[in-house]
């Protein structure tokens, strides 16, 4: 399928509500005409190397968080247990909370904090204690 020949400016029209909504509508209209190819109207180098060179910026780069996230989605038996336990709750939120705990909480209070992070209501649950304990050990080993 050929790409659309026209082009659209995205930059100039996003300051006010009316402009932003008009942009959203125009993009929608362009999708209606071209399907996914509409993106070529707006972006010059769709097939360039932008995705390969998309790096975290220094402001947001956070190796600890990245490490925790990687662990949480891994095949590690503890990670699987955690995901089962969490159900629909967000892994990203858990990762953010754990990273914060790692950065801020004194070592002596970490276990209690991890329990709190994991707990939904009651914090005395044996499962949660065990899970929190294993998780903290894992983090201590790997971070």
């Amino acid at each position: 399928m050929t790409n659309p020949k026209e082009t659209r400016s995205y930059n100039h029209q996003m300051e006010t509500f009316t402009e932003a909504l008009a942009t959203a509508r125009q993009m929608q209209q362009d999708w209606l005409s071209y399907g996914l190819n509409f993106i070529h109207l707006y972006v010059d180098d769709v097939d360039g190397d932008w995705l390969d060179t998309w790096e975290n910026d220094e402001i947001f780069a956070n190796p600890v968080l990245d490490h925790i996230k990687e662990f949480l989605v891994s095949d590690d038996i503890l990670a699987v247990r955690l995901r089962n336990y969490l159900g629909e709750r967000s892994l990203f939120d858990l990762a953010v909370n754990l990273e914060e705990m790692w950065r801020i909480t004194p070592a002596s209070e970490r276990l209690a904090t991890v329990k709190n992070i994991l707990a939904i209501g009651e914090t005395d649950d044996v499962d949660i204690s065990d899970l929190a304990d294993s998780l903290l050990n894992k983090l201590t080993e790997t971070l």
Partner: protein
Amino acid sequence: MLKATLYFVVKYKISIDIFLGAQKNQSVEVLLMTAKSYSYSKVGDRLQAKEIKDKLKSLIEQASSIDSNLAKKLDEINRWVKDIKPGSLTAKPLVLAFLLEVITDAKIWLIIQSLPSEAEKAAKFEQMTPNERYWYGYLFPKWINATDAKFYIWKQKLMAGEFNQEDDDIIKTIAQHIASRNGNVWQRYIADLSMATDLIVSNHQQQPLCIQITSVSEELNRQKYQAWESTLRSWEIERGLFLSYNPQNANFINQLVNVTLYNSDYLVDGKYLKFS
């Protein structure tokens, strides 16, 4: 020549336009319009893909003081894009289309959220079509605030190239038919990836209806239907239409469009209707 001069002028100092206009006895508006339409049509106005990342970053900063959940979500997207290893030809256009949509929607949301009073916010929603209002006022904020269990699956979907050009063409064709019959359609990649919704459609009654269109075989269909219904319920989408089609049937597009427009007007809340 005048156009070239104007382009230069617009690029560097807009006030010179006024001076030029006065000199040539042209109204300022006419000059500005010419300059504006000229600059809009030049090829260089398209974004470089890398600029999208800058836009995302600046939105994260903006959002952090207005809506921290949105900032978190955008930051998550920023990190998530980094890890995408494109596994198919459609991955790059799809990721860009998704990003540009999220940036536009986030911008609209932030503009509304920065308004000082509820009345002013409500007035902005009043300017929207029913589909837009449903999206920006209901589903998009739900997505911002939800712990989206499907979020991690997205990346895998994109990398595996699960995006299907044929399905996309059929969805687009159905959307075109609906639009040509004065129905309204709204398509969102977030709705597609997270909410099992290919299109949001409204008709005479202005009641947005979420629809999913699929071509899978009968046996798989049942499973897919159940997963679809539970996804819709989990997002508190009150009703929905699950359309499966047989591409052998020459008239299937018209049938699907008829069913969609009718049900958009008449399907009651709490119903998740399957049509095949």
